[in-house]
């Protein structure tokens, strides 16, 4: 019976960041010699849980017990001593130190790392090179080998397979799975349901910071996991659904406003093609890190694509700078509102900023015209500006409205919205989506990424689903309910098709 008493027992863990609750009450029980999956939709609290377990964050409440003894993990060094090691999405290697120096920094024996590396099929890494000169997959495996060399009781793998080719993924599971025999456990965080069902013994599912179930992910259990991740669909959303405008597909002219052909950037954005017509809202559905960030960066002129074409109104373009994209009528509303706005300046100045080049006469800003256009934009968006001169004093929802208002005042053809409703209350969310529909009705094109899949059918006409840097599915929004999207975003549809 003692074999089944948990190695790691987490109960009632909670953590909040200001008004945002990241973890409400998370429970996790890992048995010795188990590969345990931790699953959940975006923002369910997986990363926060991992960070608490590895001492990066301190929890507000709840307990962590190792081998039945309650431990307070105050720092990564302490987590290591307690036998908890993690390999993060971003390898924790110091770029300006050599591989060997990195190992010495953590007090890891080089021979042990070399042994694990050769088991992982990477025996040709030169320990004398600076880690900044190693390619990402090697870094990831090096980080893994270093963690394995410390022989931890519990190894946490956060999305380690996301950037690995398939053959290496199998190898990683092979090597990691061998730890079972020694009674050591692995916690595996992944978006890839298929991997989880093949390699993991049990899966804990988080939703909204709470543990909602523990499943044995045998073949066919995927549906149950997806159901758990989704939870009961919020009544609020269903109500909004009823008010939704009928599906349209552009203004009927059939011309494309924005066309993307075989776009490729870095390792994350592989090969993406799609079109957006005038008057159309195209949704982008994807889990974290499937290339959507790179896609929006390329379209907004923040980064240059490695290959492929962006056509605006049928003409090929090349954006060297966001200025070029704005000039071509493509404007970005980023998730991080503070990225777009000048926090210390007034609402008026923020809205007027992209306008300035059009308002100047003889180099001076025509204040009257500025005031008029800003006022129109504020009224249109119902921005609550009572006595709040500085943008940083506005609520998140109102800040996001300001970052849309500035483009309204400046004028645009295509609005790129990257997760515009992140951390915004439901009322403002609806206002933003209503506005998006209005803009489309007035002839604008909108490309909308949101991490909340349930919101996609509310605002979009069509949805493209990205997985592994490719478009794996294109759906009309009326059939794109959350479970369909979640399945597709996990690459399940792609596998069925391939």
């Amino acid at each position: 019976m003692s074999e089944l008493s948990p190695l790691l027992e987490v109960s009632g863990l909670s953590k909040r960041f200001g008004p945002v609750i990241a973890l409400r009450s998370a429970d996790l029980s890992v048995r010795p010699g188990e590969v345990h999956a931790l699953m959940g939709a975006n923002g369910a609290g997986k990363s926060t849980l991992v960070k608490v377990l590895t001492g990066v964050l301190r929890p507000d409440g709840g307990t962590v017990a190792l081998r039945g003894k309650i431990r307070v993990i105050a720092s990564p060094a302490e987590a290591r001593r307690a036998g908890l090691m993690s390999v993060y999405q971003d390898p924790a290697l110091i770029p300006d130190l050599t591989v060997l120096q990195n190992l010495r920094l953590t007090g890891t024996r080089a021979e042990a790392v070399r042994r694990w590396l050769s088991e992982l099929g990477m025996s040709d890494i030169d320990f004398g090179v600076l880690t900044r000169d190693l390619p990402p997959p090697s870094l990831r495996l090096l980080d893994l080998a270093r963690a394995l060399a410390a022989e931890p009781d519990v190894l946490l793998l956060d999305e380690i397979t996301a950037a690995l080719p398939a053959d290496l993924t199998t190898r990683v599971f092979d090597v990691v799975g061998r730890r079972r025999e020694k009674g050591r456990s692995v916690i595996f965080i992944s978006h890839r349901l298929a991997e989880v069902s093949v390699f993991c013994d049990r899966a804990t599912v988080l939703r909204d910071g709470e543990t909602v179930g523990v499943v044995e992910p045998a073949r066919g259990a995927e549906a149950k996991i997806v159901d758990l991740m989704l939870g009961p669909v919020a009544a609020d959303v269903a109500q909004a659904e009823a008010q939704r405008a009928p599906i349209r597909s552009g203004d009927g002219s059939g011309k494309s406003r924005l066309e993307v052909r075989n776009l490729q950037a870095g390792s994350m954005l592989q090969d993406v093609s799609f079109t957006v017509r005038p008057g159309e809202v195209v949704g982008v559905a994807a889990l974290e890190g499937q290339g959507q960030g790179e896609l929006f960066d390329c379209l907004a002129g923040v980064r240059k694509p490695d290959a492929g074409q962006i056509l605006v109104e049928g003409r090929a373009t090349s954006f060297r700078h966001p200025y070029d994209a704005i000039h071509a009528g493509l404007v970005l509303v980023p998730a991080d509102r503070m990225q777009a706005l000048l926090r210390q300046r007034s609402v008026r100045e923020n809205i007027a900023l992209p306008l300035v080049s059009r308002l100047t006469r003889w180099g001076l800003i025509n204040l009257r015209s500025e005031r008029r256009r800003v006022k129109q934009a504020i009224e249109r968006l119902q921005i609550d500006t009572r006595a709040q001169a500085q943008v940083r004093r506005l609520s998140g929802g109102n800040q996001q409205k300001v970052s849309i208002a500035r483009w309204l005042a400046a004028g645009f053809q295509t609005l790129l919205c990257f997760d515009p409703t992140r951390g915004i209350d439901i009322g403002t969310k609806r206002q933003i989506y209503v506005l998006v529909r209005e803009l489309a009705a007035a002839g604008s094109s909108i490309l909308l990424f949101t991490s909340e899949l349930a919101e996609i059918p509310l605002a979009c006409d069509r949805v493209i689903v990205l997985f592994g840097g490719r478009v794996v599915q294109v759906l009309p929004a009326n059939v794109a309910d959350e479970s369909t999207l979640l399945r597709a975003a996990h690459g399940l549809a792609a596998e069925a098709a391939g």
Partner: protein
Amino acid sequence: MVLGRVALPFVPPRFVRRHGWTIGVYALLLASLIFTVAIHPTYGAFDIKSLALGALPLALAAAAQTVVVLSGGIDLTVGPLMAVTNVLAARAMLHSNFRDALLIAVLVLILGCAAGAFNGSIVVFSRVPDIVVTLAMSFVWGGVALLILEKPGGGAPLDFQNLAQETTLSPWVPNALILLIVVVAAVWIPLRGSRLGLALYAIGSDRTAAHASGVNVPLVRMLAYTLSGVFAAIGGLALTMTTGIGSPLSGSFYTLSGVATIVLGGVSLAGGKGGMLGPMAAAFILTLIPADLIFLGIDPNYGQVIQGIVIVLVVMVGGLATLRRKSA
């Protein structure tokens, strides 16, 4: 191996590639010495000695700055701390004998260590950006120096001054140079070989990854400022040795000159990159430039202009070289 295995005509060995900047700075120093001898054929042992005397405080200021900048910070108190320790030593050593002077020097070092630790703890605990904290503290230490000694004065026993001013071994090897090498090596070599030294580079290179690697980031940051305080105190003592007096405003020159020196010496202001050898040579180059101007009969006030141009040029050439290697 991933780097530079493409069809390059010549791939320099890794040592040369990694320490290219340092090698370049020493080549530049050699070139400027050759240039100096060319324009001033009588350049000899005496000139070498005055070069070493001039470069000693600057090199120590650079050493103080290097430690903090490698850890990803900046220390604007280096100059004022040198002034405090300079006037403190000069005031206490006046009319003392050599043995007492050595004892005072040790006490001054301990004080520098404490002052550095104080700076560091404010930076770490207040969470105010280091540039703001050390700027504010630079006024505090500057004021303290004036409180200790209102105007230049004090003194030090001749034997103590000779620790830097004499040429004991050979007329061509000034004591100042030996002192610099011994002092910097005594602190830097053990540190560089230790895990602490790695941690210093680690927090400057990627603080998040360092934290995740189990490095105690606040502690290492504090330690960097403490070491900076030690080097600044040695710099203050060096000023006492080389000038024979204490001057409350002596330090003001060394804060920004120290930053310029380490930049020329190949230390990245972004942290995590560089070493101690480069800045040492850079201190000699920057001391040599005004001397050369005097030999050329040019107004030495142009020295600052030329120093500025040299720094920008060297950093630009270095940056271009790095870019080319990356694209190769």
